């Protein structure tokens, strides 16, 4: 029964999931309380518990992996899990892209009197002209400057595309057991990821202080910051995961054949990359 080769590995009972649930509950309950004037301590405690859980749970998985407990069938389960998780992320972004397209194709033109909405415009917002970008007929947030595409955003596009190349180069290194190439490639990717985030932070700062472009700047500010903001969060997560993979590579983890963790993070990185291309085209460029 306990033969250690050829079988599908079933893990022993684990307390990490319940720790994760508790952390998630405290984080979100604390956040909602904080929004209504309570202390932020519950939220911080929840975040801390989640971080402990992530170290503990992934630590367990890494140890099991190093102990050779995962056969090819387990590997396939992991691959499917990661692939469908990324698909769910795609659908999450789809909701926000959908909101952007809806505003640009329907709600803004309708407020301007398009289709059969002449009276909406005449009676409610007679001075409103439907153009994109807009902060709406009530000019929510006041005068602002829209974000151009060909400064930092274009540079960021190049940065992310290059990081896709470097992570692939690192993968080639791993597959031919060239540790130097693997580690250099990962270092470059992580550096490019954080460089992207730094430039994004600079862009946000510029928007808030110089352009009066804020999250509350009508539908343009809303879609701009929500889409780029959620993307930025995903880049942060991806770059952090790449950093973990870098550390593990330096510790000598992974073999030429068996390195699912590396591949999962690489997939995630490419996903983040593709989302950015959509953002660059529809949020920055085609305005």
């Amino acid at each position, binding site marked *: *029964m306990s033969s250690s080769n050829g079988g599908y590995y079933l893990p*022993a009972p*684990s307390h990490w999931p319940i720790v994760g649930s508790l952390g998630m509950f405290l984080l979100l309950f604390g956040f909602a309380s904080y929004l209504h004037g309570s202390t932020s301590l519950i939220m911080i405690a929840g975040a801390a518990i989640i971080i402990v859980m992530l170290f503990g749970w992934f630590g367990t998985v890494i140890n*099991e992996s190093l102990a050779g407990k995962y056969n090819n069938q387990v590997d396939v389960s992991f691959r499917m899990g990661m692939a469908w998780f990324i698909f769910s992320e795609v659908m999450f972004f789809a*909701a926000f892209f959908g*909101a952007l397209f809806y505003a640009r194709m329907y709600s803004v033109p309708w407020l301007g009197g398009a289709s059969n909405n002449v009276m909406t415009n005449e009676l409610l917002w007679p001075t409103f002209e439907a153009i994109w970008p807009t902060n709406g007929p009530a000019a929510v947030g006041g005068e602002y400057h829209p974000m151009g595409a060909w400064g930092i955003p274009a540079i960021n596009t190049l940065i992310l595309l290059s990081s896709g190349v470097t992570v692939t180069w690192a993968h080639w290194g791993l597959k031919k057991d060239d540790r130097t190439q693997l580690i250099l490639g990962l270092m470059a990717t992580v550096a490019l990821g954080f460089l992207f985030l730094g430039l994004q932070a600079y862009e946000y700062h510029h928007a808030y202080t110089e352009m009066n472009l804020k999250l509350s700047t009508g539908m343009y500010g809303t879609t701009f910051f929500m889409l780029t903001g959620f993307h930025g969060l995903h880049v942060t997560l991806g770059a952090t995961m790449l950093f973990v993979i870098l550390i593990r590579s330096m510790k000598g983890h992974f073999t030429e054949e068996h390195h699912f963790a590396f591949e999962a993070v690489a997939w995630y990185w490419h996903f983040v990359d593709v989302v950015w291309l959509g953002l660059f085209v529809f949020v920055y460029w085609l305005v």
Partner: protein
Amino acid sequence: MSTATTHDEHHDHGAPSGLMRWITTTNHKDIGTLYLWFAFIMLLIGGAMAMVIRAELFQPGLQVVDPHFFNTMTTMHGLIMVFGAIMPGMVGLANWQIPLMIGAPDMALPRMNNWSFWILPFAGTMLLSTLFMEGGGPAFGWTFYAPLSTTFAPASTDFFIFAVHMLGFSSIMGSINIIATVLNMRAPGMTLMKMPLFVWTWFITAFLLIAVMPVLAGAVTMMLTDRNFGTSFFSAAGGGDPVLFQHVFWFFGHPEVYIMILPAFGVISEIIPTFARKKLFGYSSMVYATASIAFLSFIVYAHHMFTTGMPVAGELYFMYATIMIAVPTAVKVFNWTATMWKGSMTFETPMLWAIAFVFLFTIGGFTGLMMGIAPADMQYHDTYFIVAHFHYVLVTGALFAMIGAFYYWMPKWSGHMVSERLGKIHFWWSVISVNVLFFPQHFIGLAGMPRRIPDYSLQFADWNMVSSLGGFAFGLAQVFFLFIIIKTIRGGKAATSQVWEGAHGLEWTVPSPAPYHTFETAPEVR
């Protein structure tokens, strides 16, 4: 495929016992049991709320609760039944049955399976805690349309939003697990087109869940930022649109109704062949019909919005697309009927529930067709007619299938046969009272009584009273069900491996009760 299974510290020795066994378990049977109990407790809580609603509607006028609390009850009743009772109940069935039916040693990702479940009690607590907050719980209906849920909602709405986030996270992980299990853990020889239909329907449902739960998360996130951070998603003043909420919500919401009913189709497709002692008629057409329904569910959602306002071309498109769903659904009803045709049928309790499902779900399907017709829907929209419609498909549909599944598989789970006498009393009690409860709602709806209203015009008084009496009887029947469940767990006639004379499939080859670990050596499927 696997031939043997390894265990880290063999579970049965040195494993946690007592409460910690249930909290830390990675066993699909334990987790299935947890899901089913959670769903049943939520069913009773949501049911108690329904009793409050029916008590208030027993007579015209305001007598039991104040209107805001009434609205809170309709909202929470819907949310708890959808996200707390039906969905987790179906996942519980999936956890117990899918590994048993495809000959797998467990779910593909057992630790994540535990997490999928253990998020639920926390999310449920967060959702229920809103009832005790200042300003009351959410009172905007289970569809939480903006701006009712943004500009005009109580502070507790932010807790509701995060509860929905957690429920969605749990569903997505659960679905990923089901897809990986079905694709990667089947016994040798168990080809896709040999899989039991319950496995097929859940496999397809899992794809629906992964596609739409993130969109729901997006919708509530937009609500959160509109409420707290000054965004304009649902505000026309900033260039957004409250109607956008309805689009995002129903892009999730329509597939959601198939998420709740497709696994029920699967259950019925298991029960009927067993008691008709015939193979399921048209197996492959059942698979294709399920897939077609799943596909169509994505492209019909705006039929929930006929009265919201959309271009005429949109109304026409969504009307025709909606009516098209009748085709694959009719294929299923036809196949169930044809399976029974000339079968040597017996009427044990599970079969009674399955037959009631076919009849009563079809009634709900037909009223759905009526409302799919855009010009007619202008009359039915937001009346008690729609309430009757979706309770026929969800109570006598999804819930009846789950109760049928309980009577069908409980001998395998507990090792005890369920008392046929008690089961039949439960069945007839439920099936009569549920029709007394919901059938009159068609009449008062067509006569014009709006939904989500605590008081009503005198002309609706008689049928409301009848409906309430049916409601109390149906509610009591489910307390009786609790008694049956506990009685069966504690004892009863020992079940054989096969349990039912006409049962076929891998789950009937293992002893009853099913041992803690099954199919550690994969069975051979011919």
